[in-house]
């Protein structure tokens, strides 16, 4: 039990490390902040004064522990957020929505009050002349200017939401009176089929040309409802198309299957049974498989009633020459059909009307079957 707990802890720490490697939830801003903090740490210098003070060497950090860098980035991010929160608070207290420079100065003072800064004990100090600002001014003067290494796009990038077209835009009348024209169209309207076709076409095109950057925006335009501008970085284009592919490939949104009769492959029974019964071909009732024999007593009954049914209800394909075509007979009593049944037990038609014709066909078939049987023999 203790081993299990230990192992669970280990896997948990591995997972947490894996997540940390992904910058705490794949946060783009966090990754940028990490790089900026690393740059600042690199620029920090401690001057080492020698005994004779002839030379002055600057010691810098050469490398970081990854966990230490993560912690420092987290602290820096929280610092910025605290400054923002406090500045917002002071602005709201003063009855304003937008922040002021003095709000920011006050927020910096609040955060710096733990460490202490010059003049914090003065009661009538002016915010504009706060020593926090002076410290910042001095830092700006002393530290070397080091701009961020990468050029950032404007972020966070907002994705244009694909708006569902309204009834008016599609040109379809709403099904009921109470539905206004400006509402989005129902998923079942013909516009949706059109869009689905377009999506299907787009999926094929996208699957074919996944690598092509310039073709993707054109595809998006083809099924965007109303010519929405797509101004994104390539990453976002890929992301959005992937998301749209997911939507298009969603099986729950595809059209339902139509009711169609599907051809099923015929089922063939064992061949030995028919061969055994070949010598019995002369007998009208016995040159079929024993299954039919079981139905003969019922035929006798049926003769009386004029009502034919197969005993076991088996349905066989007429394509097999050795087997008979069993059909259910649902219906009324008819004398002529009785006679037809008498002629051949096996020739039982689905419908009484076409029964005679079918019997004639089967009669010819029987002759053929007889010839086939002789060949087999």
């Amino acid at each position, binding site marked *: 039990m203790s081993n299990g707990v230990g*192992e669970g802890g280990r896997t948990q720490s591995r997972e947490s490390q894996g997540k940390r490697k992904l910058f705490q939830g794949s946060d783009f801003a966090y990754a*940028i902040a990490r790089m900026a903090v690393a740059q*600042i740490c690199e620029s920090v210098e401690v001057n080492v004064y020698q005994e004779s003070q002839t030379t002055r060497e600057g010691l810098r950090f050469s*490398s970081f522990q990854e966990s230490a860098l993560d912690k420092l980035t987290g602290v820096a*991010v929280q610092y910025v957020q605290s*400054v923002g*929160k406090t500045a917002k608070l002071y602005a709201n207290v003063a009855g304003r929505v937008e922040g002021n*420079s003095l709000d920011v100065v006050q927020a910096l003072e609040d955060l710096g009050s733990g460490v202490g800064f010059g003049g914090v004990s003065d009661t009538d100090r002016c915010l504009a*002349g706060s020593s926090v600002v002076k410290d910042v001014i001095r830092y700006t003067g002393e530290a070397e200017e080091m701009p961020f290494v990468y050029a950032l796009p404007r972020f966070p990038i907002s994705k244009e939401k694909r708006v569902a077209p309204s009834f008016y835009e599609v040109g379809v009348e709403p099904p009921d009176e109470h539905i206004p024209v400006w509402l989005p169209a129902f998923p079942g309207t013909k516009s949706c089929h059109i869009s689905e076709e377009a999506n299907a076409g787009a999926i094929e095109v996208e699957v074919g040309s996944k690598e092509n950057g310039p073709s993707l925006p054109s595809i998006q335009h083809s099924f965007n409802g109303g010519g929405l501008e797509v101004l994104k970085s390539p990453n976002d284009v890929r992301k959005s198309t992937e998301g749209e592919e997911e939507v298009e490939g969603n099986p729950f949104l595809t059209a339902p299957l139509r009711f169609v009769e599907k051809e099923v492959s015929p089922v063939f029974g064992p061949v030995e049974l028919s061969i055994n019964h070949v010598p019995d071909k002369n007998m009208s009732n016995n040159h079929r498989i024993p299954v039919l024999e079981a139905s003969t007593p019922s035929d006798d009954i049926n003769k009386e009633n004029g009502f034919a049914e197969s005993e076991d209800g088996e349905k066989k394909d007429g394509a097999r020459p050795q087997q008979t075509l069993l059909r259910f007979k649902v219906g009324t009593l008819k004398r002529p059909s009785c006679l037809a049944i008498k002629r051949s037990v096996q020739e039982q038609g689905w419908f009484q009307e076409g029964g005679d014709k079918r019997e004639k066909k089967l009669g010819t078939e029987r002759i053929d079957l007889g010839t086939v049987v002789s060949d087999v023999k």
Partner: protein
Amino acid sequence: MNHGQQSGEAKHEDDAALTEFLASLMDYTPTIPDDLVEHYLAKSGFQCPDVRLIRLVAVATQKFVADVASDALQHCRARPAPVVKDKKQQKVTSCSFSFLLFRLSTFDHVMNINLFFKQDKRLVLTMEDLSKALREYGVNVKHPEYFADSPSTGMDPATRDE
């Protein structure tokens, strides 16, 4: 009244200094990009259309991080270096040879090697130094020293069930 006038003038001066600084911020590019700071400020609810204020926050954050890093660097430097016993580590590079000679004339032999080793030492930002530096700023960072696979890790092998 005089005091009032003087304080009024001082206030004007302070205002002027602040506005001058804000104007000069447009020339100075802080290391932390503006977009990033604006993102986090917006996340916490601070609305401001003025770029200079965002730059002010960026520079203040940069100063804070630099202060923490320099404190950590001091802690790292102040830690006593490991005593050198291996002769291989006494090899000098050409650029610091003259420096070593200078040091030998004034200090103890062991101390020289220690100081020399310090000059050549690669400073690494570790969690220990960082937690010591951040403690002064009111941020408590506790880092576990090691992770154990199981409660019996590190115990006597005789007592372990295996």
